[in-house]
């Protein structure tokens, strides 16, 4: 368990505005999926922009694999090869005419040959499940497709860490579920994921760890299970537990669930728990 990225005492204010980050510290553990969870306007995007050097803090520091951040042009290039950022709005990152062209942009910027870049493009499109879209003009994609193309553009750079700003914003449930599957898959291949979201259900479905954000600081950081099932803590960040956990907690409080059972992550889990409690004879 090593911190691949960490920030300490980060402060930042956009010129002429109130501070967006007010002395914030956070660790990103290699190989895990971290949700930056909080309401809109809490400073989540601003933090992500600091994690790949797009913004430079007013005070505090960012450390990449133990090394203090290097904001020289060269330093930034190396940093962004290791830590890729996917913005919330895919249209802010997709600029080329076709999907394959667009995804090749990052690898070519990394100085790869055309042949290597072509392989990277293939690999990234396959990983995102959009190999069939390679020749599609980028302005003819649906919202969900655009999102995946933007992520493929980052994945093609083979970063160690992938930062995603509100990855499921604007997607319908099916689109969001497909994306979660793809992201889980990337995590399984060893990529570290950090994503911001105001959607606690997404955090429950995808995150190993959660950092609870509010008003430019981290209220709490820890394992997803513990944090997301603490209604008092969530309330302080203006959030409510996921419906599933709310039910679980309510049922447990009334003795309808075994108190020592693990947190349910799906409807099936919870129904199983309730059923076990209702007919204890079947329980393990």
């Amino acid at each position, binding site marked *: 368990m090593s911190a691949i990225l960490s920030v300490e005492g980060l402060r930042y204010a956009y010129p002429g505005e109130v501070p967006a980050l007010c002395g914030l510290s956070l660790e990103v553990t290699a190989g895990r999926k971290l949700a930056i969870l909080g309401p809109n306007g809490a400073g989540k995007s601003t933090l992500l922009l600091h994690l790949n050097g797009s913004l430079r803090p007013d005070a505090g520091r960012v450390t990449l694999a133990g090394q203090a951040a290097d904001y020289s042009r060269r330093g930034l290039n190396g940093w962004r090869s290791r830590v890729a950022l996917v913005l919330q709005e895919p249209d802010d990152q997709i*600029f080329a005419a076709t999907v*394959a062209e667009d995804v090749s942009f990052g690898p070519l910027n990394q100085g790869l040959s055309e042949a290597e870049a072509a392989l990277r493009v293939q690999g990234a499109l396959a990983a995102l499940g959009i190999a069939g879209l390679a020749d599609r*003009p980028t302005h003819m994609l649906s919202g969900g497709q655009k999102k995946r193309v933007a992520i493929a553009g980052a994945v093609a750079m083979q970063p160690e860490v992938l930062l995603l700003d509100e990855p499921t914003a604007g997607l319908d449930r099916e689109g969001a579920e497909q994306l979660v599957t793809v992201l889980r898959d990337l995590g399984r291949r060893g990529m570290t994921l950090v994503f911001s979201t105001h959607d606690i259900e997404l955090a429950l479905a995808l995150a190993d760890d959660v950092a609870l954000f509010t008003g430019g600081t981290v209220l709490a950081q820890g394992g997803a299970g513990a944090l997301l099932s603490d209604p008092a803590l969530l309330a302080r960040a203006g959030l409510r537990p996921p419906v599933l956990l709310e039910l679980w907690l309510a049922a447990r409080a009334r003795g309808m669930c075994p108190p020592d059972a693990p947190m349910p992550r799906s409807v099936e889990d919870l129904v199983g728990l309730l059923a076990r409690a209702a007919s204890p004879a079947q329980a393990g």
Partner: protein
Amino acid sequence: MSVGTIDRAAGLNRWRHRALAEKLLIGLGFLVLAVGLPPWPGAALVAVAMLGFTFAGARVPVRLWLAAVALPLGFLATGSVMLLVQVGPEGPALAQDGVAAAAQVCLRAMAATFCLMFLAFTTPAAELIGGLRRLRVPAEIVELALLTYRFVFLLADEAVAMTAAQRARLGHSTRRRWLRSSGMVIANLLPRAMARARRMETGLAARGWQGGMRVLTQRRPVSVGMVVLVLVLQVAVGVAATWG
């Protein structure tokens, strides 16, 4: 027709995957013939050939094509009326050779327009712009054009949505309000365009952008058969128009 209608058709027609060089040879080659040859029978032959390439070859949807050609034909109607009339000391009158002159111009302009429409309906604008690179246009200018292309669709969508929102609130109910509403749309569009530019800058920097905008472009193989066919046709049209 919206801003993207023709370009969308260009991305969907049967010749979408033909090499850019072939389509340029057809579109630009015949365009040069249309303007360079005597209109009768040169331009007439070009027009027929282009209709063949457009509909039999690329299978461009006829209805969209007709909707797009309406605008230039409107211009042609007004323009050629001018050629029918002459203005002398005793006022306007029918020009002596006006009909012949107007017919020639109409023929040439129509043939040339069909060539332009062929290119527009078979080749996405981005591919055409990419072709400028090979004409040694500086990379910076080509990249600027490509980014402009990208922004055009995004801003057009925003403008359409803003206009719809204003209509819904009766913003076009009188001419005066319409003018004012249009001004508001434009005034709101400019800062949004600039904000978009800034966000794109961040987004691309995150992808290692250092100034250049190189991407892998797919080069499609040129079909020798097609090139020969087109060249033979063009020579034939040239010969027929010059000695016919």
